[in-house]
């Protein structure tokens, strides 16, 4: 189908972007890579009056080391994350996750910020951000605020972002070891279930995607001392929703399969 009619603006500065977002409120949508927004327009699931294309904002670009954390701008694409030597070295979890996101032509346009701000519970980056204890840098006219990943994802496609705020970047603290695994019916499909795992010193963190309305931190499994204990404990952490093809118990079984693979890598 064809998208409904909307206006389009491409601000050259943050101030112009805030003007547009404040003036149009809920009737405006931010356009980043557009790889989820444009399909939803084409299918007429969404009909904003105005698209504010933020691709001209230089402040949202770039990958840089801030102390020990890696700061990645919201407009950095999946393809850039996949290929960046800095990401591979300082946030290898993201480099491992990126090739699982859709297909090359989509990874050339889709962005980190777009994926985090959309907060699709089946997406890869939200789970990675939670596993790495990332901080999100959110800009508005009033200035800058930092939000921890654990406080950012509020519900199904729901985040802590307020009207007229822009997600500018995310900062990912280092991990000693990281592993990303997921199961999908075909390469590039949304995962049936996936796991972002990290280890900092002896502290493991397991975060599942496709397992609830938000990325789910498996608290009990992360505390377990042995693999058997962790697999057992996962039953208390997860109650994954069934999808068209997989029952909840199948998804829990598959989550345990992934946990075993990740456990042996971390």
């Amino acid at each position, binding site marked *: *189908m*064809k*998208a*409904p*009619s*909307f*206006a*389009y*603006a*491409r601000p050259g500065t943050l101030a112009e972007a805030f003007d547009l977002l404040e003036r149009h409120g809920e009737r405006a949508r931010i*356009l980043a890579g*557009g*790889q989820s927004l*444009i*399909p939803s*327009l*084409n*299918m007429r699931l969404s009909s904003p*009056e*105005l*698209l504010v*294309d933020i*691709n001209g904002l230089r402040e949202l670009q770039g990958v840089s080391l801030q102390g020990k954390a890696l700061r990645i701008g919201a407009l950095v694409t999946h*393809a850039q994350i996949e290929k960046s030597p800095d990401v591979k070295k300082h946030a290898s979890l993201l480099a491992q996750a990126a*090739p699982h996101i*859709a*297909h*090359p*032509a*989509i990874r*050339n*346009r889709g962005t980190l910020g777009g994926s985090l701000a959309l907060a699709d519970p089946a997406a890869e980056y939200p789970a990675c951000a939670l596993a790495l204890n990332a901080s999100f840098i959110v800009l508005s006219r009033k200035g800058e605020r930092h939000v921890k990943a654990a406080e950012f994802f509020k519900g199904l496609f729901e985040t802590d972002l307020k009207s007229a705020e822009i997600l500018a970047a995310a900062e990912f603290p280092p991990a000693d070891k990281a592993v990303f695994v997921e199961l999908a019916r*075909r*390469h*590039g499909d949304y995962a049936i279930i996936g796991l972002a795992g990290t280890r900092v010193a002896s502290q493991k963190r397991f975060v599942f995607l496709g397992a609830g309305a938000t990325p789910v931190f498996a608290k009990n499994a992360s505390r377990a001392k042995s693999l058997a204990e962790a697999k057992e404990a996962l039953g208390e952490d997860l109650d994954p929703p069934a999808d068209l093809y997989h029952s909840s118990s199948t998804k829990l079984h598959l989550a345990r399969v992934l946990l075993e693979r990740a456990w042996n890598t971390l």
Partner: protein
Amino acid sequence: MEHALDTSMTVNGSPVRRRIPARQHLVDFLREELGLTGSHIGCEHGVCGACTVRVDGDIVRGCLMLAVQANGCRVDTIEGLSDSGELKALQKAFHEKNALQCGFCTPGMLMAAQDLVLQKKKCSREEIRNHISGNYCRCTGYQAIVDAIEQVLNGQS
């Protein structure tokens, strides 16, 4: 607010300037306005890959980019790549390996395959399949398509 914008881009090497409705995606613009109907429209939500074109050297989904977003960009379509001879080896291999039947997916498939060819590395069949995983073929199937791409990439016959 502007519902149509003056937009300039370079398409297959030629400068193009048009006033484009914001809601029109890039492939509709190429097909409807410029008559470049080699890029096909299948699903219009980013699943099938029939609309694959190149923007500033990177392959993208033509249905998931607004035409106005291509302002200032270099856009290359199957027509441009075919006319310049860039796709000669792939086209020959697709012909020889019988890697198309109805041909609907072929332009997108060639654009995606050429992206891999340009990376100039040898690939396993698995890697080729991963790279074209976003391009659907509903008739010939993938075996012959992978054969053709493999022939070009790895110089096998």
